[in-house]
């Protein structure tokens, strides 16, 4: 399943934008001292981090470690118990129209009678016309978004007839159709087989040239290959560049089901049990 990381000397090549420092970029997401508890159980503690414009950040961590919660806080679907969250410098509710969101496919009713086109058009709600009736512009945008994920031939197919990977592409099209500046993806790789994985990440890389991407995943092979930075979430959040992971270490770590990443200094710290 997991491919050997490639790169000279077994070291994954760094991506330039993450080496460059000192340059002040616009903060797309900014969380400071955020705490969140659900029914009295703390889910996230003292979370402080920022996502900058153009970032490609991956959120990893154990199940129920707070990954999806983090996304839902950014989307204002959940309110933090304390601390502050700013998205594009404003309150998360105000920023929603600039965000594209892809939920986990597992959260949807797969028997629901909708076509692929119906699903994608949902991403156009709230944009045009106060009644939510779609016009030609919405339809063109939906067509374009489906072309982006190479699902245009499935336009009139029932959503329930698609394979898991195809459904995920459609949900990404729905997230893209509003022309977002920030793309949030929850487990976009869970149903994608290795054969199309590369293709899928080429797409994300291309999208990343125009928008900031934050994605939740458990697929570390993917993280090491494509993503700029990693946020390890297990109640607390730590951000690391993936640039310094060596192939040997990854092999070793997968065996132990543990991911090691370099903290700011030289010290290797065990952060995430994934």
């Amino acid at each position, binding site marked *: 399943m997991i491919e050997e990381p490639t790169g000279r000397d077994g070291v994954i090549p760094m991506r330039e934008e993450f080496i460059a420092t000192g340059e002040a970029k616009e903060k797309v997401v900014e969380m400071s001292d955020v705490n969140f508890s659900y029914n009295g159980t703390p889910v996230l503690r003292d979370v402080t981090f920022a996502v900058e414009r153009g970032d490609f950040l991956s959120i990893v961590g154990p199940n129920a470690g707070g990954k999806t919660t983090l996304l839902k806080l950014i989307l204002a679907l959940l309110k933090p118990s304390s601390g502050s969250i700013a998205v594009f410098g404003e309150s998360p509710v105000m920023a929603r*129209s600039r965000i594209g969101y892809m939920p986990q496919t597992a959260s949807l009713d797969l028997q629901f009678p909708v*076509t692929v086109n*119906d699903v994608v058009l949902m991403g156009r709600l709230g944009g045009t016309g106060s009644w*939510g009736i779609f016009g030609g512009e919405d339809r063109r945008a939906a067509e374009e978004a489906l072309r982006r994920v190479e699902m245009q031939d499935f336009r009139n197919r029932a959503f329930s007839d698609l394979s898991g990977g195809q459904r995920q592409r459609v949900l990404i099209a729905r997230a893209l159709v509003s022309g977002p500046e920030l793309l949030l993806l929850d487990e976009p790789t869970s149903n994608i087989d290795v054969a199309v994985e590369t293709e899928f990440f080429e797409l994300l890389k291309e999208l990343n040239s125009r928008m900031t991407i934050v994605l939740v995943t458990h697929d570390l092979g993917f993280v090491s290959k494509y993503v700029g930075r990693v946020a390890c979430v297990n109640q607390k959040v730590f951000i690391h560049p993936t640039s310094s992971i060596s192939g040997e270490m990854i092999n070793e770590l997968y065996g132990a089901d543990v991911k090691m990443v370099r903290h700011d200094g030289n010290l290797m710290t065990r952060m995430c049990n994934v």
Partner: protein
Amino acid sequence: MSEFFADIKTQTFLQFALATGLLASVACGVIGSFVVARRITYIAGGIAHTVLAGLGAARYCQVTYGWQWFHPLYGAVIAALLAAAVIGTVSLAAHQREDTIIGAVWAVGMAVGILFIFKTPGYNVDLMSYLFGNILIVSRDDLWLIALLDGFIVAVTILFYNRFLAVCFDEEFARIRGVPVERYYLLLLAMTALTVVLLVTVVGIVMVIALLTLPAAVAGHFVKRLSHMMILATVCTALFTLSGIVVSYGPNLPSGATTIVIAGVAYLAVMLFEWLRTFGRSS
């Protein structure tokens, strides 16, 4: 069956019954599709049984206090809307306790209705027609009311179709796209409540759920869009209620129960057909 076709030309009550069946199909097909797609059958059931409280209370007031204007139908509408508001608010606020609350509303509504009917002076045959419906006692005024309700439901559904679709399919996503999810969900439940009241006259409280879900479930096998499901479910409901009236008339069977049995047989046939098809494909 021949008796029916002989009587239909002369008997207005039969003509009214047929018109009721046809008109009710529209609201039933549209709302039934929402109920099936959004999986809120249990909520519709809770609302239906609470209707008895409204019917009973109104009848009690009519007989005991002489409030002739307080038609049981008004009582039913008030009770149904109240039940929808309570269940809707609770289900939006606390997802995990939803089924308990629905169960409580369901049973308490029914109990209150039975108490009122029990204390209403005089011999009471109303209870049976409330529980099992009697499409043959529909008046001209009732027909107008049903037509009005149809118009309202169809207009609201067409106007807000895309938003309802988004709220039913993926509530969170709709919220992020700026759709006021609570408002649309409660509006949907209110329309469900009104449809339930209407269907109580056709098949009675006990069988409302079957008429809301079976035609939509049958339609669901043949379509891939919610709007198409609504149209086909309307056609199915019309076929079921009309054939229910026609078949039950001669042997003097209760028309509501006959309608439901026909709908149930059709649903089973579709399921069997579907099963045979997949079985044939896999072997």
